[in-house]
């Protein structure tokens, strides 16, 4: 049985053996035809992996990879014919051209996403023949152009030599790709795919992330284009038709768009189908379509594809889950996280939605090291207040002042970066991530390692990762999640998901914690535990804000309670003051209750 800890090592070993086999292939495969086929698979895998970045991780149907692949191929062919036949130069320049094309065509449609983006990609592919023919002097027109044998550092490359360049390029890219997605960058992308609101609350810009994913995905597509031009010795517009777009999409979805190796699996299938298609073109097309249909129905369930299914199978048969749950409550007794709370003052806040006044001149004071609860009946404006503080809902009248400085008009992202961590009424947890990864994503609010350092796994990056791992271990121990670090977060029970969200917020070392109905849906035992956690939070120094309906819970954990009704603050004070406040009792509990209160008062 493979233990939970041993698995990454096994994976690494398998990957290393595969890489070695791939690079040494020319020495144990004598057949040039087979080498060409392997090159073709590697090239397709490059393109599909680019698609995985934008589709699986970026969550957008950005199918521009086919057009970028074409741009790469023609750039390579043109350079080889006119400038230099050095394959390395061709590959690098082709990648650059693909990124430029991606920027021009991606920028307008990425903002909107959905069908607009998909159709832009289709349209680009439609234009390829016309553009190529306009430049027929340079690019050979509809009939295509031949590409001479490539060279590298001045010497000509034979089939095996070209194959080696392809294999090494593919390996380098896949290591890069893996390093990107298995890092805070990958987690940011998946968080953004889950919900733009979640991304903003982690201090991330959804648009910038999407664009980054799309442009990174252009790199391998461009490189693959230049390589394919050299491997085939020929480029023609008919290679880049709409069938290619559909084929790439099918390959990505079947392999698993949100995985790394899925691209290789998909590329194998695609190349196999391509081999057959000369004889059975119509059946291959029907096959792709059926795969898309099936994949599309399943896509909404995570995007793991074939690779995801295999992983789930391994996990089912291998996971021992032997890590013992430590006593979190005891750990909290003598360990605190150093959180420097902020003082937030809210002055005269007003907000209307289409004629309904949600908040009508609300003043609140939220102090550091205190638990402040906002309570009130439905529609009283509690959640609206929370959304205004975290910048999700703008514009509004009035002001929000953090430690003496107004944050009015700042975006949710900017406010998150100022130190506001939050949980959501319905826990927002990206699919396929483990608890550890979700917790790590909380740190994104503070900083994200530079992309280059992430790809190269620099010593600085590794040091920070080690620190983060230790930090996650610590927080998970304090919250009693340490036995679940390897579990898929989305599949945990609702109460545990809330704790995971809280942990994620804590990893960002927040000065302000906004907890939106964190107690709802918890059972009795979990409530007792949560009460202890919230008490501990304020001893850590954070400014904690609870939006709650559970009056009994609030009574026990809050230092200050504000009662909202119809968009106004009806009362504010200690829980004791609130539970004997006549107006509160009338508004919130009803007249009958007031009589009882007076009876009960000494």
């Amino acid at each position: 049985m493979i233990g939970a800890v041993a698995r990454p090592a096994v994976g690494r070993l398998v990957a290393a053996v595969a890489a070695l086999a791939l690079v040494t292939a020319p020495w144990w495969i004598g057949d040039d035809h087979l080498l060409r086929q392997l090159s073709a698979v590697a090239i397709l895998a490059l393109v599909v992996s680019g698609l995985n970045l934008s589709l699986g991780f970026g969550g957008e149907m950005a199918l521009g990879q086919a057009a970028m692949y074409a741009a790469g191929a023609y750039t390579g062919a043109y350079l080889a014919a006119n400038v230099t036949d050095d394959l390395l130069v061709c590959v690098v320049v082709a990648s650059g051209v693909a990124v430029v094309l991606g920027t021009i065509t991606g920028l307008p449609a990425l903002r909107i996403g959905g069908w607009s983006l998909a159709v832009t990609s289709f349209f680009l592919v439609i234009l390829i023949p016309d553009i190529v023919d306009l430049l027929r002097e340079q690019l050979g027109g509809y009939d295509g152009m031949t590409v001479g044998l490539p060279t590298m550092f001045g010497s000509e490359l034979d089939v095996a030599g070209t194959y080696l360049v392809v294999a090494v390029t593919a390996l380098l890219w896949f290591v890069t790709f893996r390093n990107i997605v298995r890092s805070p960058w990958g987690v940011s992308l998946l968080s953004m795919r889950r919900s733009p609101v979640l991304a903003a609350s982690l201090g991330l810009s959804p648009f910038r992330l999407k664009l980054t994913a799309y442009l990174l995905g252009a790199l391998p597509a461009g490189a693959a284009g230049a390589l394919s031009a050299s491997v085939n010795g020929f480029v023609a517009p008919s290679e880049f038709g709409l069938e290619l777009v559909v084929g790439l999409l099918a390959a990505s979805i079947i392999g698993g768009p949100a995985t790394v190796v899925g691209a290789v699996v998909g590329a194998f299938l695609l190349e196999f189908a391509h081999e057959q298609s000369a004889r059975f073109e119509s059946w291959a097309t029907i096959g792709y379509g059926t795969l898309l249909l099936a994949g599309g129905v399943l896509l909404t369930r995570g995007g793991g594809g074939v690779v995801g299914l295999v992983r789930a199978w391994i996990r089912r048969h291998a996971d021992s889950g032997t890590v013992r749950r430590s006593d979190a409550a005891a750990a909290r007794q003598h360990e605190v996280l150093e959180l420097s709370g902020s003082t937030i003052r809210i002055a005269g806040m007003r907000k209307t939605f289409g004629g309904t006044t949600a908040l009508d001149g609300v003043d609140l004071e939220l102090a550091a090291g205190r638990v402040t609860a906002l309570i009130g009946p439905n529609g009283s404006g509690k959640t609206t207040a929370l959304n205004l503080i975290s910048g999700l809902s703008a514009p509004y009248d009035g002001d929000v002042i953090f430690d003496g400085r107004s944050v009015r008009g700042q975006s949710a992202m900017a406010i998150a970066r100022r130190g506001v961590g939050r949980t959501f009424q319905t826990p927002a947890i990206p699919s396929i991530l483990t608890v550890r990864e979700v917790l790590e994503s909380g740190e994104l609010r503070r900083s994200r390692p530079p992309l280059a350092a992430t790809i190269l796994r620099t010593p600085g990056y590794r040091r920070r990762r080690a620190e983060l791992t230790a930090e996650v271990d610590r927080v998970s121990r304090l919250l009693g999640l340490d036995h679940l670090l390897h579990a898929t977060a989305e599949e945990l029970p609702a109460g545990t998901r809330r704790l995971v969200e809280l942990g994620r917020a804590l990893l960002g070392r927040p000065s302000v914690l906004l907890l939106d109905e964190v107690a709802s849906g918890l059972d009795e035992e979990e409530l007792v535990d949560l009460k202890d956690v919230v008490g501990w939070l304020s001893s850590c120094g954070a400014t904690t804000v609870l939006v709650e309906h559970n009056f009994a819970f609030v009574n026990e954990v809050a230092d200050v309670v504000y009662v909202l009704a119809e968009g106004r603050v009806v009362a504010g004070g200690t829980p004791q003051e609130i539970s004997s406040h006549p107006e509160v009792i009338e508004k919130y509990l009803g007249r009958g209750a007031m009589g009882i209160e007076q009876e009960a008062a000494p």
Partner: protein
Amino acid sequence: MMTTVWAGVAIGSVYALIALSYNLSRAVSGALNFAVAHLMILSALLAFTLLGLGLPVLVVLVVCAVATGMLAIVEERVAIRPLRKNDSHGELVTTVGVATVLTGLMLLLWGPDLRAVRLGAGFDDPLSFLGGRMLPIDVVLVGAALLVGALTVMWSKHTVSGLLSRAQTMDYEAALLRGVNARRLSLWGFAVSGAVCGFVGPLVAAKTFAVASLPTFLAVMGFVALILGGLGSDLGAVLGGVLLGLVQAFASRYLDPHYQYIVPFVLFLLVLMVRPHGVLGRRETRLV
């Protein structure tokens, strides 16, 4: 000059018909059906075969409409209904999948060659109109686009099922609570929109030709027309289609045929940047 205008309006009517079908599929099921152009051309190929058997045009059109309507019902069952619960853009993948299956079917049954759909001898003599020349089939297409557009608007504004459809796409759950059978609505909506595609498909192909590689191209152009006019607006779909056709015709005639799609593409990108909700579109709450 006027001949170019008529050419643009005619091809624009084809785009408009596709854009209208997109709107209709959205109205009944909330999902945009990428495969409408594929249904049209499949129907055209069917018409090609039936006309070859010597059947009268009207009979052929009716048979095609019924057959395509049934195909659309199958599509709804396999590509739309399973997505109902998870409200994401799953149809982006599934209806592209259906389109691909249909493309394969066309290749399998009719091969990769161009097929000309001839509706009758009278359709080949050009007419003169406002100083430009126009083919009778162009007039038919313009008429079809206007008719389908008008019928869609009337259906949506003045019939019970149109009203329920609009309600359903606004708030699915609230519609259920008023007894709206969303599944049946979606199924019948697909059947009707499929039948419309089946009816106009042979007309479209009588102008262009019928071949398996055509519909994906038409699907893209139809979508561009839809975005130009504004998603969800039927008037916008017609105007967007005509605008796109005119831009294409003029770019082809006065620049170079190579620019006939490049110029519309640039226009499309510009519209996406400046007015992402189209010329007549309303801002939707969130498209992302």
